């Protein structure tokens, strides 16, 4: 997943340095608050851990082997911001001293492997392992965290590579950097990660996190022993932003009805013609039931609240069922 020098255009590299500069600043400030600045050795050793763990191979079915990045493990154990700093240090060291990943791509690699992986891994672990998880659920949570983090990071890398022909071509239109369009880079990155590297990252993360939970290992604590408040804050902000959907005009891509299909491609596919529209849903188009006097905006917000409530209830029931299992 390390993007080498020469694959990304200078403007892409600059953009990611610009994006990551505040992230690094916030991460270092958060680490100062949470971990304490005098705990610098902990971050350095967290980075050294991810560096060394990348050299360790895991046996996988079929006689093959592979290695993990370890970023999600550090995020789960030290917290997401410490994970961001530790993985950034690793990415920078690998680029500058060993040529693994580009020097000009430190910003982009930091975004994918430090920022995206740490945050996605940490928060997905927190959500799945909420409450007091037993061994099986904690294993599943760590697996899902590693799997999701690897795939989202790979997707980000695929987007960065895939937009190069669009944004950085020569005057004659020839690609100067990564030459393949999104139609190639996305499947090329995502398929191996969905099928191999993602499960590997998930397995490695789950094995290590489970081992830490089982043995205790002194002062090492995993993420579910921390406050859930940040996750709830993010959830509430997302819920409050839901009405933004009302501002978007037109039909969302891929959600066309039969009439729109006719306008777009000139005909309605036979399968869609046969079964499309049979079930309209309890609240069709997120609107109020027929005969209601509620405005569309209020109906939209109510439907979002109902949907969120159902999801929270499902997760709660799921957590109760899995508790101590």
């Amino acid at each position, binding site marked *: 997943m390390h993007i080498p*020098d020469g694959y990304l255009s*200078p403007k892409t590299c600059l953009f990611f340095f610009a994006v990551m500069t505040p992230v690094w600043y916030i991460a270092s400030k958060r680490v100062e608050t949470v971990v304490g600045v005098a705990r610098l050795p*902990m971050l350095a*050793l967290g980075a050294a851990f991810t560096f060394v763990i990348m050299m360790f191979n895991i046996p996988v079915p079929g*006689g093959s082997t592979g290695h993990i990045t370890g970023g999600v493990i550090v995020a789960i154990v030290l917290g997401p911001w410490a994970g961001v700093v530790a993985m950034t240090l690793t990415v920078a060291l690998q*680029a500058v001293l060993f040529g693994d990943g580009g020097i000009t791509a430190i910003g982009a690699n930091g975004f994918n492997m430090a920022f995206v992986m740490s945050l996605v891994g940490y928060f997905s672990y927190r959500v799945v392992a909420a409450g007091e998880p037993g061994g099986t659920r904690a294993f599943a949570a760590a697996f899902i965290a590693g799997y999701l983090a690897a795939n989202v990071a790979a997707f980000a890398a695929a987007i960065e590579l895939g937009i190069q022909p669009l944004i950085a071509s020569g005057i004659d239109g020839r690609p100067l950097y990564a030459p393949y369009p999104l139609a190639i880079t996305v499947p090329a990155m995502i398929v191996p990660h969905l099928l191999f590297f993602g499960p590997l990252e998930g397995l490695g993360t789950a094995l290590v996190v489970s081992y830490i939970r089982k*043995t205790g290992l*002194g002062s090492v604590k995993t993420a579910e022993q921390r406050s859930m408040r940040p996750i709830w804050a993010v959830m509430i902000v997302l819920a409050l932003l839901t009405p933004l959907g009302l501002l978007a005009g037109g039909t969302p891509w891929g959600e066309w009805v039969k009439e729109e299909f006719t306008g777009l491609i000139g005909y309605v596919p036979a399968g869609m013609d046969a079964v499309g529209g049979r079930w309209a849903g309890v609240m069709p188009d997120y609107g109020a039931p027929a005969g209601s006097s509620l405005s569309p905006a209020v109906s939209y917000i109510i439907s979002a609240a109902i949907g969120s409530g159902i999801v929270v209830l499902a997760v709660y029931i799921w957590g109760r069922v899995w508790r101590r299992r």
Partner: protein
Amino acid sequence: MAAQMRLPQWFNDAKAGPCPSGGAVRRERFVDRSLRSIAGYLRSIAAAQDAAGQSGLVQALDTRARIAGILIIIVATSVTASWFVLCGVFIVSVALALASSVSLKALGARIMLPFIFTSVIIAPVFFGAGAQTPVVGEAGSFFIGAFIIFRVTVMLTLAAMLSLTTKQADFFKGLSDLYVPPLFVTALFMTFRYVFILIKTAEDAAMGRKSRVIAGGRLGEPQAWFASRAALLLHKSLSVAEEVNMAMVSRGFSGAKLKTIGGSPLSARDYIWIGAVSFVFFLSLGL
């Protein structure tokens, strides 16, 4: 009369190889690969330190000028769309390597793997894949692919030159002098040092398994071993961090301000170097 020692037939066999009783030993690929990765890393560090310790043209430059200069050329190489600039930078880089006692073998070893990787990735472009515009014909496809591979190669060469001509301690001090945030530089330096401690633990673990395990168990057993060793590494990381932290705090470290000893003023040679790389940079913007 001393009893005659009877050696087994296989012992006298001139061909090297395991004894018959070793036939049951099943090599574990994941352990071998881990050891190879570790050995490769240590070899790479040793080679870089050896090369950086030589006296040569690039090593004679002030560390600040050297780091800043090579980074500027890397950016110039990234910006340019010109074969002329790329070829010029590549030829000068190789010439500088030779003038700095950096062996081409060491340089080649650094860039070979990413070069092969990039060539494989870019190979379909030679046959027209990834072509976005109608101006690209067969010859065009070839030049597009070749240009991208060549750019990556030149940038790899420059990055390798940086690490092969700069001692690690000087490198971190140079970063600090170039106004990279001191906390980041300190953490980077500490990371580099701690990697050696952890790598020794990892190597001992892998070597221990290799020498003790005759035939590994089913998949779950080596995976459990991996988990235990990785967790041990993490545990060791955190306990060492605790010890180092206490040692640093007891010596007055607060993390608020980090100071390094000031560097000597730049020499005429350094100014010429900075001027030359700046010229290449501005040239790359226009070509």
